[in-house]
């Protein structure tokens, strides 16, 4: 099974969207969820996931709190803020514009 790198610049979008859908998740769940939903195509590198989460904390897109997992472990749960929801919309429309453009370019014969 081949796993693809996440295209640069879309990691925020994926995390934001995942959190928007699930409400609250810890880091492992976010990575796992992205991997599962993408049918194992998208693999989130831990090396970029956690720094990205930190940057999102700074920007105020997500907020974190410590909670207990189903396995009775302490985990840091991330949650979207209002600013994060707005950012998700921005990132989505930007992504769609770029993808649309790319599609038009490669499908033009």
């Amino acid at each position: 099974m081949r796993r693809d790198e996440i295209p640069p610049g879309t990691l925020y979008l994926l995390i934001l969207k995942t959190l928007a859908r699930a409400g609250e998740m810890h880091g492992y769940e976010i990575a796992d969820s992205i991997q599962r939903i993408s049918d194992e195509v998208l693999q989130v590198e831990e090396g970029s996931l956690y720094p990205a989460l930190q940057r999102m904390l700074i920007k105020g897109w997500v907020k974190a709190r410590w909670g207990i997992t189903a396995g009775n472990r302490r985990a840091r749960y991330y949650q979207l803020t209002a600013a994060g929801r707005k950012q998700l919309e921005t990132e989505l429309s930007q992504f769609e514009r770029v993808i649309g453009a790319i599609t038009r370019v490669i499908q033009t014969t």
Partner: protein
Amino acid sequence: MAWLTELGRRFWMLTHRQQFDADLEEEVRLHLELREQEQMQAGLAPKEARQAVSRRFGNATLLKEKSHMAWGWEWLESFVQDTGYGSRAMLRSPALTIVALLSLALGIGANTAIFGLLNAVMLRALPVKDPAQLVLLGKGMSSGITDDFARTQLYSYPFYRQMQRENQVFSDTAAIFSMTNGVHGFVVGRTESEPMNVQLVSGTYFDTLGVRAVLGRTLNDGGDNSEGDHPVAVISYAWWKRSFTRDPNVMNRTLKLGATIYNIVGVAPPEFFGTKVGEAPDMRVPLSMIKEVPPNFGGYKDNFSESLLIMGRLKPGVSIVEAAANVNVLFRQILLGFPDAKLSQENLQRLDKTKVPLMPMATGLSSLRRQFSEPLQILMGVVALVLLIACANIANLLLARSTARARELAVRQVLGARSTRIIRQLLTESLVLALAGGALGVALASVANRVLLRMVSGGLDPIPLNVSIDSRLLLFTVAVTVATALIFGTVPAFRATRLQLTDT
């Protein structure tokens, strides 16, 4: 406002570093354990599972560093680190450090001392309210008494009064007798006479300057309305301290200057020395007493006994050019209006040619300035050169040391340190050295200034000049120190990072 809350979060991180690290550590540990479980469920043996996980996870230290760097405090952390490292490096080679610190302290100290004098003599604003609004009629270059017609340096008392009444540009106008009277007077009740420097001023003097008494009152405009009947004195804080040891009942004491007894009505604030930098009279007496205060000059009612400096406080919104126009119209009008004006052909021609210049008085008057500004500027250049030489010497010392450290730096570069990072570290070390030298220099300068002042004063008492350290002086020293660090640190730093692994 978003950036402000963001800044707040960043600061929170800076002050909660340990918690931040612990949180990240725990988060990563949980992640690894969950992955391990996942691998084991897929059928791997525990050991293999751990290996697979850490292979996939990659460099955990790098992850933590990246997470740290996201918060943008890297520069501060490495600065703190470099500062600590620099201090330790200084302690490791004490001989070099002592030599470098001494030459820096001398170099920066000399610069600070000379600039301190320059600051006090030429730059420092008078300790009065809004000094920038004060202007002087004439250039303030003369003192004495003259009876020449249409002089613009000194004015008579009747001229001052008319100017005060008729001008439309000054909110306050004041006159100062251009000489300080050195009197041997008595504090009534004491048997010995004391030298007292008495300055004759108009009653508006303190109000024009916006200076209030710390004790009692200052003079008022009525105080010099009529000749000879206002024997009052406002004494300086320094004299109050010196002669009365800050006696709070000083207002009950009287002074005898010449044949007249004066009531002490107030004490001026401590920072107030007057309007002439380098002179600090002990007391001020209304101009109406001009004939009574020894050496009894007189001329209160004389239209052409010209002995006063006149200053005005510009009304808000009035420029110095507008003020000059108004003053010059009045100058002509008042002089021609005096009944005893000698309107000879020559005098009228002179009046036609004369214009009264207005001088900004924010930094006060000073004969010191004329006397010392050029030598001080030359000295400033000399000490700057001395500092430059010191810089060259220290740069040489550091070059020698960086040769000795070549191995350490080479190893660090091979391990992946960027050369910009190493240059930054070496420059930070230089800065630590320079700052330590600068601090010593400031301490040295504060002593040196007093010694210098005593040296140039000549007499028994030093010139009363405020050479204490103010923000301008401090800013100057910091700028000099940083520049010094850059000058002596740059070349060694760049040389040190030029890496040669093999002998050529």
